């Protein structure tokens, strides 16, 4: 059945690069393959005229919806850890669609567990080099004008295993799932900094969380005044506890650790505090043994999610390659895809709204002829920054350094349709 459909569609296919990549306009007909498969199979052998769902009343209304039972297998990837609250869980990117991460699947990175905070007693202190130090309660912040923005958050350790000597065989989410995207609603940090009155010699703001790690990061005042937000809502509902309830800092395009969760204190200072996280952890060791400090901006990046490790191809035919792209600088300008290991490239279609500092979905049709293929994606952002090849990226950093890894990732498909992670 599938082969017949494919033959029909082939007439209007326009090949734009090696390895079977088709013009991004050529999406028509793809659904026919799926529809053909369905028409021939399910339901044909069922005895009654209609399915059970049409012959008896359905379930009751509910106060808070749940997922379809078959979708409950979509879970964050949670590792086994010596201390269960210290570490990270990853978003299973390859099992999701679109660009918005459901709140229950947003990646987590905690340094000593998820605190249980009573919003009625929690206070945010803004002090230091200010004219009037102020305390804000959760209810106080709810009274401020709000803004909502769709933004990604990416841990700077995301995709860090690409620094490993041999490619790690794991799913796209396992390798890259320390990035998520949500609509965040909150109060402009600049509004609150206006109210405390920042001194002329202030250059940094140290943010501190009310968790058991007392997480602290020094953030440039320029970033705080640019587009930083104190987020109160995530995809329309109050922040989840694991995302910083009742309030978190949100720094668009900046490494996730600096968007301090469970925010309790902002200290306006002249020079950075040089805390443990910003010196010994989230600093980038270079090949010469020195290290970059305050490498805060996340680089331009893309990953292919389908096909990817764990999502093998059942056979030759027409497919859609799709994935996600993002940049801490701004909007994605284009994503190019290669199916022949980087020899030739074709431009993918960008789906939906292409927003600054948010995830962007890309798709390109592809005819897999059943031979070996190596898939790569390369994003370019609106500042002209181009996602680097792995060898360029690795050359800059010291061995074992995995922060800010935005190198191009490659998937190899063998004749059986099995997908593996390779360095191309």
């Amino acid at each position, binding site marked *: 059945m599938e082969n017949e459909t494919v033959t029909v569609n082939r007439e209007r296919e326009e090949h734009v690069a090696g390895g079977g990549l088709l013009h991004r306009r050529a999406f028509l007909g793809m659904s026919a393959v799926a529809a053909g498969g369905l028409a021939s199979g399910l339901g044909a052998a069922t005895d009654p005229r209609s399915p059970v769902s049409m012959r008896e009343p359905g379930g009751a209304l509910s106060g808070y919806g749940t997922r379809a039972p078959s979708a409950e297998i979509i879970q964050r990837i949670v590792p086994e850890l010596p201390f269960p609250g210290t570490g990270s869980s990853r978003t299973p990117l390859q099992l999701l669609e679109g660009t918005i991460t459901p709140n229950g699947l947003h990646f987590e990175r905690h340094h000593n567990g998820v605190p249980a905070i009573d919003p009625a007693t929690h206070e945010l202190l*803004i002090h230091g080099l200010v004219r009037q130090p102020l305390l804000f309660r959760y209810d106080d912040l709810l009274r401020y004008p709000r803004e909502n923005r769709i933004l990604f958050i990416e841990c700077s350790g995301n995709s860090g295993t690409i620094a490993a000597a041999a490619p790690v065989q794991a799913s796209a989410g396992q390798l890259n799932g320390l990035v998520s995207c949500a609509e965040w609603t909150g109060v402009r940090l600049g509004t609150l900094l206006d109210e405390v009155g920042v001194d002329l010699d202030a250059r940094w703001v140290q943010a501190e969380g009310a968790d058991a790690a007392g997480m602290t990061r020094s953030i440039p005042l320029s970033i705080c005044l640019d587009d930083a937000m104190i987020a109160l809502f995530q995809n329309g509902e109050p922040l989840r506890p694991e995302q910083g309830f009742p309030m978190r800092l949100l720094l668009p395009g900046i490494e996730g650790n600096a968007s301090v969760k469970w925010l309790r204190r902002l200290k306006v200072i002249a020079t950075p505090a040089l805390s443990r996280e910003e010196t010994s952890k989230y600093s980038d*060791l270079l090949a010469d043994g020195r290290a970059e400090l305050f490498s805060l901006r996340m680089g331009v990046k893309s990953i292919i999610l389908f096909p990817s490790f764990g999502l093998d191809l059942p056979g030759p035919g027409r497919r859609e390659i799709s994935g996600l792209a993002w940049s801490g600088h701004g909007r994605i300008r284009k994503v190019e895809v290669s199916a022949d290991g980087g020899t030739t490239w074709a431009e993918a279609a960008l789906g939906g709204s292409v927003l600054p500092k948010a995830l962007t979905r890309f798709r390109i049709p592809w005819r897999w002829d059943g031979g070996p293929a190596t898939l790569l994606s390369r994003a370019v952002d609106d500042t002209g920054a181009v996602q680097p090849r792995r060898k360029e990226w690795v050359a800059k950093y010291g061995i074992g350094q995995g922060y800010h890894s935005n190198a191009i990732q490659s998937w190899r498909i063998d004749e059986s349709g099995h997908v593996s992670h390779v360095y191309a």
Partner: protein
Amino acid sequence: MSMHKRAIAACCGLLVLACSGKARDATNDGPHHGRPASPAVIGRMDLTIAADGVGLPPGSGSVEEGRATFAAKCAACHGSEGTGGIADRLTGGVGSLASAKPVRTVASYWPYATTIFDYVRRAMPLTAPQSLTDVEVYGLVAYLLSVDRIVRPDARLDAASLPKIAMPNRNGFISLETHDFDGNIGSDRKAPPRGASSRSQGEKN
């Protein structure tokens, strides 16, 4: 706001404009739902120890005292002498950063000893953060740094001596403050990332 206060505020605003585009002042007509914070509240909440030692509390601790504290409260996770445990390695590795096997420890990598005090006091031990006394924390810093001979075996640290410790990797860092906080490959040939912001600094000032 009285006329008098308004006049002062307006003057401050002019001063801000005249001196720096970065500085901000409380001259706007925002909602003002914050509550003034007293020095006592700030003193209770402010845990920050700055790199120059500002914020270090009274008291002192010795290598010997720290060794006992470490054995009782830290070694179970970090291993004896700070290596070989399930938690981060703390000692050794000095001089290894440019090698084929860089070992990042407190001794080999951390640029400031003040950071050890700040972090240990606020976050350690993992099972009971903020349970250590200031004297215990001074002793732990002294002990940890004695393992790699960064301080003498008979050292005693306090608010005056701790910030003066010369950590081996003190000059090993390059701040990206002058590179728009962006170390990504391919990003240095572009204009500063301002285009994506929905509001630039200048608009508000």
